């Protein structure tokens, strides 16, 4: 596990870009950490690393958003952004059709508030946990 310290949004973007390079497709990126520690910013950074032009906005309301990766230089074609903030039952994600996207070699699934569905996620193999913490205004990111 590596620990990164992010002083600002730009740092967080860089850390996300670094991770993006290592992704091969089919991974689940599980983010945990309190409100306002930079989970959405990290996701935006990942989106930018894959040249997604749309703004990546909070999926809290619809729970899941799917972004197409247009740039042909990437093997990965979809970024699926999930938010469990309002969720108590992992079953809900199943109903939304999340499992159609998990384990697909052309897809990355990134989940905010993943700690709320930890048990459910253990059944999947390629999972990367990232912990966010706030310390004196800096964000500590453990990957």
């Amino acid at each position: 596990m590596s620990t990164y310290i992010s002083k600002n949004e730009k740092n967080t973007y860089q850390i996300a870009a670094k991770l993006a390079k290592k992704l091969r497709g089919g991974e689940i990126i599980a983010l945990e950490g309190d409100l306002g520690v930079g989970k959405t910013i990290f996701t935006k950074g990942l989106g930018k690393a894959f040249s997604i032009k749309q703004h990546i906005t909070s999926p809290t309301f619809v729970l899941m958003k799917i972004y197409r990766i247009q740039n042909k230089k990437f093997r990965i074609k979809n970024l699926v952004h999930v938010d469990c903030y309002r969720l108590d039952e992992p079953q809900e994600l199943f109903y939304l059709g999340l499992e159609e996207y998990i384990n697909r070699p052309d897809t990355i699934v990134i989940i905010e508030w993943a700690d709320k569905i930890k048990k459910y996620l253990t059944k999947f193999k390629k999972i990367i946990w990232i912990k966010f913490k706030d310390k004196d205004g800096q964000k500590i990111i453990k990957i």
Partner: protein
Amino acid sequence: MLILGIETSCDDTGVALLEIMSDKFRVLANLVFSQVKIFKKYGGVVPEIAARKHLENLLPLLEKVMKERKIETKDIDAIGVVYGPGLITSLIVGIETAKTLSLIWQKPLVPINHVKAHILANWIEGDKGQLKKIEFPAICLVVSGGHTILALLKNENDIKVIGQTRDDAVGEAFDKVAKILGLGYPGGPIISEKAENADKEFYKLPRPMINSRDYDFSFSGLKTAVKNVWEWEPIKDKENVRKMCAAFQQACIDVLTKKTILASREYNAKSILLGGGVSANKELRKQLEGQAKTEFGEKVKFYQPDLHMTTDNALMVALAAYFEVGADLDKFNETWRSIKVEPNLEI
């Protein structure tokens, strides 16, 4: 023509019957079954339960509306239904019901964008009368739990997004701040109630992106600011909760009104419109109208939808269907074969 509207994009099941004849309208029915009470205990919408409730309520609601109004299937000329954006599981119930009705009744089916319907809600006032004559170009601020959008309208069918939130929707920020302050769900009405007559200057909060040279918004940082300030507040009493609600609400309103006014100026708007659930917020209505007056005087007219038209309802869907159809109803005879839900639909 008589249009049946169906709305199931989130947690409200709506059925409406709207009669329109050359700009004269009559609302025959506009029923909404709200699930908000069910979701209070969950602190938000649970998609699977919402879908199940839609399924339980939609057809009985439709039967009731038609029976009470003595409307038979032969009287209906078209069906309007929301196909996105929204919760996929909820949308499917409305769409599949509407498709089936369209096939069995042999009625044209008009797919409607939920956000457009919120904007077009401005054209109706009361239960009957003339459709409003809103002058173009118009700028509409759409604010709700899922959206924060500034749109430019050249006419009722030419709607373009010129700015939107880059992270959280404003209604979502209200919900999250309410949660931080321990106030429950939904956050909008509670916060605006607590904020009434409270000191909005006591807590200093940022105005994210207020000076950015575009029409985009950001509310995620504002929510974080509330959280940080609140964590350091030793006295978390009722009075301070009210002050925080007022400070937060004002921060949102400042950004929303400033950008709406700026956009209106740049695009020489003749009308400013409001739409979406958060547009029920009294302070927002008052301040936006006030600022529009100060800035443009009588040159720009300010419109806001009726209160019951701000939240999700099927009347706005039926109305949007009327505009969508225009003069060509036959175009929609076979749409039941092809329309699909689009949870991430954009304008």
